[in-house]
């Protein structure tokens, strides 16, 4: 048991600083890296991003001889290199939700909003810090998985593609940018729902449940609607090929950014209005 100090008078601080947006960003960076759950989720994101491309590259190489021409035509090197992005987006989304709902479930949000009573600087700081961390942390594994999967495939002289080929660099870097935007989207959902389970469920519904449900619709409807869903629009960032029923990379990316802005905007309005 620790003991109380003999000093019962509060020492003067000799310092008076205002709340500024950069200071709140620094504070949110302190919060993010000082939690174990952050480190585990990000580590999972990094490992998943790299593991799946390596496995797919190895399996494809070893089975190439026995694959039908149709199967071979269906394989694309970038689908292999970026397979991990589809998986790790869940880890990133869960962490994005937790960044804000973790504060509500523990009561930390009251301390945060007492220190920054205008509240919005906290939302912006969380978004900026999380987005930068995800981008910087996910870009190396995305690049690494591209070059590593290509190295495995090149030993069998199959599915070769160069980083300088048209669209390849955009797709690979786009994979990391997509993960960053998924994180922002999930953070916004978390701020709206304010509950971890609810936030993750909402994210999963939007990204993993609604898209396949579109197949129930008549094909013409499905083709018309699906391309505008957040997950489909965002996917164009890291898809090399596009057809008549998908958006091109830039419109897709802009639409996904728009969805993120919309979710954050709703979160901002609610954050200022609601009781804590």
């Amino acid at each position, binding site marked *: 048991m*620790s*003991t*109380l*100090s003999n*000093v*019962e*008078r*509060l*020492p*003067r*601080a000799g*310092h*008076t*600083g*205002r*709340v*500024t947006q950069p*200071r*709140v960003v*620094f*504070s*949110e960076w*302190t*919060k993010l890296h*000082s*939690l*174990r*759950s952050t480190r585990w989720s990000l580590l999972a994101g990094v490992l998943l991003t790299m593991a799946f491309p390596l496995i797919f590259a190895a399996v494809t190489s070893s089975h190439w001889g026995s694959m039908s021409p149709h199967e071979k035509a269906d394989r694309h090197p970038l689908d292999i290199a970026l397979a991990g992005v589809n998986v790790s987006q869940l880890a990133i989304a869960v962490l994005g939700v937790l960044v804000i709902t*973790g*504060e509500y479930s*523990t*009561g*930390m*949000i*009251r*301390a945060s*909003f*007492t*220190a*920054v*009573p*205008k509240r919005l600087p906290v939302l912006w700081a969380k978004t900026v810090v999380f987005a930068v961390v995800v981008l910087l942390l996910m870009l190396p594994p995305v690049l690494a998985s591209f070059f590593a999967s290509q190295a495995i495939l090149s030993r069998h002289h199959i599915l070769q593609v160069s980083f300088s080929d048209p669209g390849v660099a955009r797709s690979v870097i786009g994979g990391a940018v997509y993960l960053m935007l998924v994180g922002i989207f999930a953070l916004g959902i978390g701020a709206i729902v304010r509950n971890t389970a609810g936030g993750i469920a909402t994210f999963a519904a939007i990204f993993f449940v609604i898209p396949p449900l579109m197949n129930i619709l008549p094909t013409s409807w499905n083709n018309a609607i699906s391309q505008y869903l957040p997950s489909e629009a965002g996917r164009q960032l890291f898809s090399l090929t596009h057809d008549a029923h998908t958006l091109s990379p830039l419109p897709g990316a802009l639409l996904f950014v728009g969805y993120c802005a919309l979710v954050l905007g709703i979160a901002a309005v609610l954050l200022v209005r609601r*009781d*804590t």
Partner: protein
Amino acid sequence: MIEARSLSKEYGDKRAVDDLSFTVRPGVVTGFLGPNGSGKSTTMRLVLGLDRPTAGDVLVNGKHYREHLAPLHEVGALLEARSVHTGRSAFNHLLALARTHGIPRRRVDELIDLVGLREVAKKRAGQFSLGMGQRLGIASALLGDPSTVMLDEPVIGLHPEGIHWMRTLLKGLAADGRTVFVSSHLMSEMALTADHLIVIGRGRKIADTSTSEFLSQASGNVVRVRSPRATELEALLAGPDVSVAALEPNLLEVHGLTASQIGDAAAAAGLALHELTPQQASLEEAFMDLTREDVEFRTAAGESEAVA
């Protein structure tokens, strides 16, 4: 300085705070006294702008809390509900709060030492006992060296040494010229700490007075007097506003006079006193009487008594 003007807060159709007006002044410890569920915590949340009032207004140091540019230097608050992420260490919790205001790291260390959490500063707050959690909350409240300190039930979970430390700390904060606003549901605790009392029940103000005045009113100046010459003393003390009851031979209970008045009178008449005790024990009862109608949730026994 905290100024509440006709403050009201409703949650659905439940009125937690009802037309509450009061001023908490600097330089003294002001106790905020009321039974559990009387609206103390809600009032404090309204002060901090965590909840918005349904009606009325509350200012801290002359402004709405949200308008302060450096809120941690204006108000330090300990809320009843825990406000700490359970996965973060005490040190990092304080550091994260400090960085919003550019408060340096050494100030965080200073506060950790002040509340005696040095040995556990790197431990996750989720593993803290109630008392350690309280001390972390107090460190957060004092981080910015605020001119107004507002603590909700600060002695809960503290061991006797901690309670004594808290009383001394609160008095020191007031002596520095700060505004100190402390809530409690324990009359006895407030009697020892607070100079001024704001008493509420069911969200309404019942009393707003100095502690000494509240105590003398509440206890009704009951003094227990033991004397070998009790009968003579009884005759001596008799007066229009005084009533004396003989509890035992040589033991009187005097209503309407202070202990010093009785002692002086006895000395002047040359009567020996073996005991002269102001009856503070009745304070809790007096407080209960005062707030009885205002307790939101009565016990089942109390309810059936009321019906019978």
